[in-house]
């Protein structure tokens, strides 16, 4: 059996196991996996804009927060059902990306990163300010609902959809064109590639996932406040997961999310005080020792196809 077939077989087995898990697993297991799915979707989304075009977004959690508030407000104030509200959250995040991407994607390198950081801070301040709608600093409580298992499935679908989307993009010429922006934007333009439009498309696609996932997380947690849905730490975690797994690859974000999330849950939970310390050490180690990440290194060494 070829490695590709073996991998596909393994994938089917894992997917099937995850699909039946809620019938046998513990409540804790379901919640942990639900969060893992969330991280896969977030890391994969960040990879779409930053891993492919090289435009490093330091405020990607803004789309997560915008999605969380959109869904929470629609559920609480307008009485929408959560699946519909979460779909609307994806649309809202996409709309925000359109609004902010058009001017900001003209900025290069660190300027774009800082602008995105600023966006996140502005959103957090806005949400705190409009108390009538958002509850301001005291947060927003959603009506009680026990829906962990359905949310588990939808979150899993989101993780799968983001990964599938990444696969489709990376193996397409659209994906190659996004990479030319990362490699050499001037040369890409000289080759007749409309880089502004390509960047915007990638940015829009990278915002949808965090929007929906933000809505799901809001519904799952039942309570949100500005500091819980707009934390810089979430953006940094997404970045570290992608860098660790391999930026610009299909499976890098998944690998990074799984390894970092599992080690966080299993190992770090037992050493609460060194948790942050270890996380920082990992960031430094990744940047110094393997800036391309695990799959990036294998990619170069063994000339793996883009489907990896």
């Amino acid at each position, binding site marked *: 059996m070829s490695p590709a077939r073996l991998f596909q077989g393994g994938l089917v087995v894992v997917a099937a196991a995850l699909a039946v898990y809620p019938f046998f697993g513990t409540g804790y297991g379901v919640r942990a996996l639900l969060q893992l799915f969330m991280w896969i979707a977030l890391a994969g989304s960040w990879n779409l804009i930053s891993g492919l075009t090289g435009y490093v977004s330091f405020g990607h959690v803004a789309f997560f927060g915008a999605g969380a508030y959109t869904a929470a407000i629609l559920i609480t104030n307008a009485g929408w059902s959560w699946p519909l509200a979460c779909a609307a959250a994806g649309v809202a995040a996409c709309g925000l990306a359109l609004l902010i991407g058009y001017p900001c994607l003209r900025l290069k390198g660190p300027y774009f990163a800082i602008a995105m950081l600023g966006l996140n801070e502005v959103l957090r301040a806005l949400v705190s300010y409009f108390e009538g709608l958002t509850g301001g600093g005291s947060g927003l409580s959603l009506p009680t609902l026990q829906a962990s298992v359905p949310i588990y499935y939808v979150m899993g679908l989101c993780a799968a959809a983001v990964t599938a989307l990444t696969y489709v993009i990376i193996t397409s010429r659209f994906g*190659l*064109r996004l990479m030319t922006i990362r490699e050499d934007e001037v040369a890409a333009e000289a*080759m007749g590639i409309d880089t502004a439009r390509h960047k915007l498309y990638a940015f829009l696609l990278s915002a949808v996932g965090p929007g929906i996932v933000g809505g799901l997380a809001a519904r799952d947690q039942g309570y949100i406040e500005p500091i819980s849905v707009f934390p810089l730490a979430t953006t940094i975690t997404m970045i570290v997961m992608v860098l660790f797994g391999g930026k610009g690859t299909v499976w890098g974000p998944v690998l990074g999310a799984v390894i970092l999330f599992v080690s966080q849950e299993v190992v770090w939970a037992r050493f609460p005080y060194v948790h942050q310390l270890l996380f920082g050490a990992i960031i430094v180690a990744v940047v110094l020792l393997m800036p391309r990440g695990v799959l990036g290194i294998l990619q170069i060494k063994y000339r793996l196809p883009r489907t990896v």
Partner: protein
Amino acid sequence: MTAALELDAVKKSFGGVTAVNGVSLRLEPGRIYGLIGPNGSGKTTLFNCITGVERRDAGRIFFQGERIDGLKPWQIAVKGVGRTFQVTRVFPELSALENLLVVTRGDRAAAERRGRELLAFVKLEQLAGEYAGNLSYGQQKLVEFVRVLMRDPSLVLLDEPAAGVNRTLLNDLLEAVRRLRDEGRTVLLVEHDMKVVMGLCEVVFVLDHGDKIAEGPPGIIQADERVIEAYFGR
């Protein structure tokens, strides 16, 4: 007949430095033109103005009779102006073949066939799957050259195509440039290697300090006193 490219008093300065000082020139279709001049005479800036990488301060640029100054670089490329860069700008983490594929749309199998044909044309078919960044400088130069051809441009601007390419490949490259001309394309090249310029170009423009100081067939240009002065001093 409509000119392949026409520049009308194109000017570009950076701060207080005038890089291109009101240059006018006209390229007839299907011929090979050379652009020479000492370092800093404005050759690359002129290329950048034509391809939209730099916006000219004044003057007009026409491609096949249509004004292109003010268009974005990608729009100019799509119209049929291809270029290479003085220091090669391949996409290093894309394979040689992927470097060529990025500009294509539609039938992918056909695009890959065409890409492999072009790589074979510069004898790089064995390296189609290699990352462009791992190729030698000369090979990158060739990849960049054939990448330009993927769009089937009618005007090709080559910035020092011969620099860093070894002798055996150089002859192939020169032959390839002549073939472009024979296919009806117009070529404008910047080159420091006078043998290449004299052997290839039908008309040569000479720039010095941003001014066009001479224009004509290579034989006459070589004997032009102003040109000799610009290169060697009085």
